[in-house]
């Protein structure tokens, strides 16, 4: 899933019948520093509570079709949840990695 910022709403009256009742939102996807990354997308609102300005997280491709109460609704992005707190660390603040990362011994 990726972070997103809801930047608008969208209404489409004339559409595929399977999309009836789906709430569409315009979402700017963000990188892990919460900065805009890529183009905005239109996402189905799986929470039914997201609105413009909210920080949300979005799932894409086939799993997006499983977010709404009616399963397999044909969408390719869906809002899974609304972020209360995103606790993100900078490089310098992360503890040293626990992993032994080495090159093979030269022959």
């Amino acid at each position, binding site marked *: *899933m990726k972070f997103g910022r809801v930047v608008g709403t969208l209404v489409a009256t004339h559409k595929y019948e399977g999309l009836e009742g789906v709430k569409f939102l315009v979402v700017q996807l963000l990188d892990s520093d919460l900065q805009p990354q890529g183009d905005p997308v239109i996402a189905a609102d799986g929470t039914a509570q997201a609105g413009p300005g909210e920080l949300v997280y979005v799932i894409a491709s086939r799993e997006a079709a499983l977010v709404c109460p009616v399963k397999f609704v044909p969408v390719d992005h869906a809002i899974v949840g*609304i972020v209360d707190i995103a606790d993100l660390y900078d490089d310098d603040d992360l503890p040293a990695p626990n992993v032994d990362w080495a090159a093979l011994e030269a022959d």
Partner: protein
Amino acid sequence: MYIGRVRGSVMSTIKNELYEGRRLLVVDRLNLDGSVSDQYDICVDVVQAGVGDVVLVLDEGNSSRQILDREPDGAIRAVIAGVIDEITLGQRDNDGQ
């Protein structure tokens, strides 16, 4: 699957019911030299990974649903499937030495 590093967590009250009671961690994808790439995922943690850990991320729906025992449907795709102990890279000669 890919190698990632946990750089944070997400707290969320309003969310899909599949995520109730589950930890959501923000994982930056790493290149093979250990540097941070520009890709990342918000993942469900099933191995009690901590911030700073280098982890194995599984980013595929059916496998993730299998891990969470939620076949055949469930809106989940990225899961932290393991904490990495050791990575060894390099090449051997073609004669297997």
